[in-house]
C-alpha cells in the first residue's frame, strides 16, 4: 500500500467537505438534534422518576456513542457515494490505486469525520446537560475502539452492497444502523430481548459497549476481557466486510457493471 494514494482519497473528501457548507453542516445537524432530544428526555426522566439510576450517562451517553458509530459508518459510505454520484468509478478503478488503498482512504475519511462529530457531541452534551465523559473511566477507550472498528466494518459492508447492486442501492445502506440498534441493546439489556435476538446481539460488538455502559452506571465491575473480545470481534467483522468488498469488486469487473455505473445515470 502507498500512503500517498490513501492520502489522495482522504484529500478528495476533505476538499468536498471544506468547500461546501451543506456537506460540512450535514455532519452536525442530526447529531445535534439527537443530543438535544435525548438530553432533555434524560433530564426529564432524572427529575420525574424516583429511580437512583443516572439517566444522563445511561441514555445520553448511549445515544452519543451510537451516533459516533453511525458517523464512522456514514463517513465511509458518503465518501464512496461521492464517487458514485460524480461518476468517478472509472477514473478511480482504472488508476494504479489498489483496492486496499481505496478502502483505507475511505476508512480514514470516516474516522476524521467521526472524530469531528464526537468532539461536537461531547461539547454539546457536556455544556448543556452536564454529561461527563469521565463517568466511563478507562472503559471509554475500549468503547470508542469497538464502535470505531465496527463502524468501519459496517461502512465497508454498506459500500460493498452499493458496488455490487449499483448506486441506486444506497437506500439499503442508510437504514443499517437502525436495523441493528434493537439487537445491540442501546437502551436496554439484551436479556429484555427474545432468545433469538439475544443470540444476534451477542455476535454484534456494540452490545458489549452498551452493556458496559449500563454496568458502569449500576456500579458493576467491568470485564476487560469482554471488551477485548468486542475489539477482536470487530476486527473479524472488518476482515469479513473487506472480503465481501473484494468479491463485489471482482464481480462487477467480470460483468462490466462498474463501467455501467460510471457511464449511465443513476437508475
Amino acid at each position, binding site marked *: 500500500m502507498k500512503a500517498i494514494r490513501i492520502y489522495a482519497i482522504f484529500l478528495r473528501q476533505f476538499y468536498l467537505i471544506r468547500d461546501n457548507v451543506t456537506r460540512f453542516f450535514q455532519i452536525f445537524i442530526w447529531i445535534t438534534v439527537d443530543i438535544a432530544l435525548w438530553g432533555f428526555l434524560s433530564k426529564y426522566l432524572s427529575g420525574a422518576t424516583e429511580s437512583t439510576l443516572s439517566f444522563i450517562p445511561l441514555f445520553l451517553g448511549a445515544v452519543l456513542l451510537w451516533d459516533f458509530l453511525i458517523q464512522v459508518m456514514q463517513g465511509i459510505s458518503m465518501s464512496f457515494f461521492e464517487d458514485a454520484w460524480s*461518476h468517478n468509478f472509472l477514473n478511480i478503478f482504472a488508476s*494504479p490505486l489498489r483496492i486496499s488503498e481505496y478502502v483505507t482512504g475511505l476508512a480514514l475519511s470516516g474516522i476524521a469525520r467521526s472524530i469531528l462529530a464526537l468532539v461536537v457531541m461531547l461539547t454539546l452534551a457536556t455544556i448543556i446537560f452536564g454529561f461527563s465523559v469521565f463517568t466511563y473511566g478507562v472503559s471509554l477507550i475500549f468503547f470508542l475502539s469497538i464502535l470505531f472498528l465496527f463502524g468501519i466494518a459496517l461502512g465497508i459492508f454498506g459500500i460493498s452492497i452499493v458496488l455490487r447492486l449499483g448506486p441506486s442501492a444506497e437506500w439499503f445502506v442508510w437504514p443499517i444502523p437502525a436495523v441493528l440498534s434493537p439487537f445491540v441493546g442501546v437502551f436496554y439489556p439484551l436479556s429484555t430481548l427474545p432468545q433469538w435476538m439475544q443470540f444476534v446481539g451477542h455476535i454484534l460488538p456494540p452490545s458489549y459497549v452498551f452493556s458496559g455502559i449500563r454496568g458502569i452506571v449500576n456500579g458493576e465491575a467491568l470485564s476487560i476481557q469482554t471488551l477485548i473480545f468486542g475489539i477482536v470481534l470487530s476486527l473479524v467483522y472488518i476482515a469479513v466486510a473487506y472480503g465481501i468488498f473484494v468479491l463485489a469488486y471482482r464481480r462487477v469487473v467480470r460483468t462490466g457493471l462498474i463501467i455501467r455505473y460510471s457511464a449511465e445515470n443513476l437508475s
Partner: protein
Amino acid sequence: MNLVLEVSGLTKTYKDITAVNNISFSVKSNEIVGLLGPNGAGKTTTINMILGVLEPTEGTVHIENNNIAKKRSEALSRTNFTAVYAQVPGNLTVSQNLYIFGLIYGVANLQTRIGQLLQEFELERFKDVKCGALSSGEQTRVSLAKAMLNKPHLLLLDEPTASLDPSTAQVIREKIKDYAAKGTGGVLWTSHNMHEVENVCNRILFLSHGKILLEGNPKTLPQEYGKKDLEELFIAVAREPLTFELT
C-alpha cells in the same frame, strides 16, 4: 521501438453475445494506433479490458510486460486515459482534481507538472473553477490534462476530440502527435472522425463485430481496398463486414 501494449487473444463474452472475439494487436512507443469501427464494434470493451475495469473471458493484456490481471497497479501506473464517459468529478476544481489524480498516479514534482498542464491545455484561468461548471470542451481539456499527468507510456484516448470545436480539436491533435513523437509513449486512439484518424494515426485497426478485420496505414489502406478514402472504407467495413472477413 519498444512494445508498450501487447494484447493477445482477447475475448469478452456476455452469455451468448461475443463483444470482442479473439483479437491480438500491439502498440509500440512513439506510435499512434487508431482503433476504428462502428458503434457496438467492441472498441470501448477492448479499452476497458486494457484498463483492467473489465475482465476478459480469455486472453491477456500486457502493458510494458506487466500483465494487467496480475500486476494491475504497476501496469496502470504507466497508463492513463480519457473518455467522454469518464470526465473528472465536477464537484472539485480543476487544480484539485489534477492534484488528487497526480497523487494517485505518483507524479513527481506534482505542482510544477500541474502548472505545465494548465498552461499547455489553456486551463490557467479555470484552475479554481469547479469542473462541473465548465463547458464540455473545457471539461474534455481537463480530462486530457489528467490523462497526461503521469506522462503515460500508454495513453488510451476514447474519442478525445468528440466535444471540442474544430480549432481546439486541431490543437489537441497536434499536442498528442507531438507527445507520441517526442516522448516514450504509445497511443491507442478511437475516433469516428476519419479525417482526424488519417491525420494522426500511424496505423489503424478496423474492428467489426468484435473482430479485427483490417489493419494498416490509414493513408494507403483505402487504396488497397479500392476505396476513395478512409471514410468510404469505414462505411464499407461497417456495412459489409463479411466481405472483408473473407479477404
